[in-house]
């Protein structure tokens, strides 16, 4: 009988680059930057790392396939290296693989590193994925257009007028801009008002420019080990333990079977239930101290609050407008600015989210952006589009 990984793995160190338009930095430069911080934080030597996982998504404008770009760039001395790739959930996959490697007893100390160099495409937004099916029969769709449909579907299902959805998602983005402005590593560091957000040029109805996250270059990394080793290496510091990580992939029924309403993520609901089960959480709305969710678009964050049980079904509008997820609210969300403003280098984002929770749990952040009494931090990292996706959720915490 599988027992899960709750409290079997601890985070020994983490690193995260400045996110943004890093015109002068290659993917390799970014990897070294994140790794250097991560290794120093872990307080170990490179040769103590026994295995490594690389998360990266777009081959087209990035490092190439396989995991050798990681081992060769970091000069890892002939250790097992593996590349993970699962759309925008890629970095959480790398982290999960590293945690499972430790939890299984195969290794004591393992590196997970995610990286993405997006700003070599020459245009805004993500590169198109050029698959055979998409050009033959797929709609002429982009990422914002896929997620924008959550809004029209949500309006239909819950009878919430589009104007009110627009108000709520403007609040979501304004909050993330306010949080990002406080964070020196964030890509977008400007306070934007809800009025400015609602008046921005339309990208994909009803999402305007400020409803869409930053397209960024960046890298983030974690070194994981057992709680025992973590305690022995850092006796004077709280041990940040992994409570649960789960990844759920679509079965195809959302896109092709008539039961899905288009207004929620079927994967996220199942994934959250599994995470709460593994982590022993019975009342997520009140037990989760803070969250970093996959706010690729403001409407994604809106519906995700319900999918994760942080808002009641149909209740996200009231919670968002009531400030529940603001930095000083009852359940702060995107405390580092989120994908929206910290940035979204695809293959690094899941680890960046964990980094944000990690630095809060260790109370390493300045007072102005500190979450008080944080015990459990949740990350939600989504890859794909509402109709078909992989959803990764993790909870880390201190005792």
């Amino acid at each position, binding site marked *: 009988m599988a027992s899960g990984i709750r409290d079997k793995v601890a985070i020994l160190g983490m690193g995260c680059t400045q996110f943004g338009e890093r015109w002068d930095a290659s993917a390799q430069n970014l990897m070294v930057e994140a790794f250097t911080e991560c290794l120093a934080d872990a307080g170990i030597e490179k040769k103590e790392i026994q295995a490594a996982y690389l998360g990266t998504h777009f081959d087209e404008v990035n490092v190439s396939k396989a995991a050798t770009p990681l081992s060769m760039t970091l000069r890892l001395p002939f250790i097992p290296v593996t590349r993970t790739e699962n759309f925008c959930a890629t970095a959480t996959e790398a982290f999960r693989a590293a945690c499972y490697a430790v939890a299984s007893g195969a290794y004591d100390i393992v590196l997970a590193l995610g990286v993405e160099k997006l700003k070599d495409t020459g*245009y805004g937004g993500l590169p*198109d994925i050029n698959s055979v099916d998409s*050009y033959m029969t797929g709609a002429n*769709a982009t990422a*914002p*257009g896929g997620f924008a449909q959550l809004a029209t579907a949500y309006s*239909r299902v819950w009878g919430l007028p589009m104007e009110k959805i627009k108000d709520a998602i403007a609040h979501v983005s304004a909050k993330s801009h306010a949080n990002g402005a406080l964070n020196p590593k964030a890509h977008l560091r400007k306070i934007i008002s809800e009025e400015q957000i609602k008046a921005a040029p339309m*990208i994909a*109805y009803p999402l305007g420019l400020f409803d869409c996250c930053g397209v960024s270059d960046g890298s983030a990394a974690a070194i994981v080990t057992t709680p025992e080793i973590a305690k022995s290496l850092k006796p004077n510091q709280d041990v940040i333990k992994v409570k649960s990580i789960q990844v759920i992939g679509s079965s195809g029924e959302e896109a092709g079977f008539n039961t899905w*309403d288009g207004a929620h993520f079927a994967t996220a609901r199942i994934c959250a239930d599994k995470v709460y089960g593994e982590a022993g959480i019975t009342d997520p709305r009140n037990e989760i101290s803070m969250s970093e969710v996959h706010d690729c678009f403001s409407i994604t964050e809106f519906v995700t609050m319900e999918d994760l049980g942080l808002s009641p079904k149909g209740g996200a509008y009231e919670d968002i407008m009531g400030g529940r997820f603001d930095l000083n609210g009852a359940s702060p969300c995107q405390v580092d600015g989120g994908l929206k403003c910290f940035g979204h280098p695809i293959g690094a984002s899941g680890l960046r989210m964990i980094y944000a929770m990690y630095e809060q749990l260790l109370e390493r952040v300045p007072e102005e952006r500190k979450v008080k009494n944080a015990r459990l931090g949740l990350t939600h990292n989504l890859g794909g589009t509402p109709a078909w996706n992989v959803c990764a959720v993790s909870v880390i915490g201190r005792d």
Partner: protein
Amino acid sequence: MIGLCSYGGYIPHYRLNRGLIFGAMGWMNPATIANARGEKAVANFDEDSITLAVSAGRAALQDVDPATVESLYFASSTLPYKERLNAAIMAPALGLKDQIRAADFTASLKSGTTALLAALDSVSSDNPRKVLVTAADCRLGKPASPQEMLFGDAAAAFVVGGENVVAEYKGSYSVTYDFGDHFRGANSQFDNQWEDRWIRDLGLDQFIPEVVTGLLEKTGLQMTDFSKVIYPCIYPAARRGIAKKLGITPEMDLDNLQLEVGESGTPHALVMLAKALEDAKPGDKLMVISFGSGCDAICFEVTENIAKLQNGKALSASLADKAELDNYNKMLVWRQIMPADFGKRKEVDHWTRYSAMWRNRKLMLGLEGGKCTQCGTAQIPAQDICVNPECDALHTQEPYSFADRTGHILSFTADNLAASVNPPAVYGQVEFEGGGKFMFDFTDCNLDEVVTEKPVTMSFRRKYYDEKRDISGYFWKAVPVKEVK
């Protein structure tokens, strides 16, 4: 008895007011003011001769079982492919079976009537017994040319057979001349023409009387026997001269749709014939004459069966279902006459894998999905394992077409980021009545016409054009049902 068993026509949704053309280009050729009246039908950016003909053909098949059609003829002077049978691309979209004879007729504006005559000849020898004849064109005139003003895009289709004939074939007469009134070389994008006076006074004014006289002599009929005489001639003075010469009264002279559609080329005589049939009564005799490298003249007599057709007004319906194309430049961009900046995203290379397309041909061309024989779930695409999680059966799906099914909008957006020649790209999820769900591009609509739960019908369209390799790819799009005014 052999003849026409059904008919259909299709006029694309967008109409360009000729005043807009004159406003944009009249400075270069002020004489075009003479033609700057009314509007011309303009194929949408995702339409071409193949898709127009499919729309007309599907209209003609509303009253005939497609499985009974044994042959498909397609006539056009603007075939998307020189090699790769254009009719073969159309056949699955029309719901025809694979075991048919198919051919493209081309290179003359009378090839539409020639295809119709070929079909009548086939049926008269009982091999094949039922033929679908389609004709469509999207001819281009150069900016500022009279042709740009005069031409319009349209399609027509007829089922030719020996059962349930609504218009009996009574005879034909043809003349063929190498008459270079309009001509395009193998690589020409635009129409060229010789002097109007020569076309009018030597061509129309001599060939049409010759072919009509020949038809009357052959059939033993008089001009006064005919209810309608149908011929595409854009010159009003020539029409008056021909009418006087042949004794065509104003009641017999069918309007050539110049002010509503424009001269549509290969299909034009057949579009007019479909229009005439919409209003015809049993016993009416119709004479249809085409013009291009000579003439074909054909005589039909309408039968009692005409009243039995359930869907005999498709052409008028598409004539009425129109939206103004409010910008002349859009037409130039859609037809690749004017280069425009579509952004770097458009530069992504999507080259066609013909072997993959072959595997997916029923889905791409016929919008065929599957229906699980175990649980009855309709699904698109058809899959090895049933999409219903409660069923999960392996290899239980039988072919199931979504082409004729009504869907409803589950979610939608209008995307300004997507590379499109007609931004924003409007698309969304469609749930079909009877089951099945898919994300489709929407077409022939603006964002303000799209709301959730609204019904949509499916339309066969050009999905992409690969400029690098000159490949047109096809699939289906959703068209929101227009409010009946």
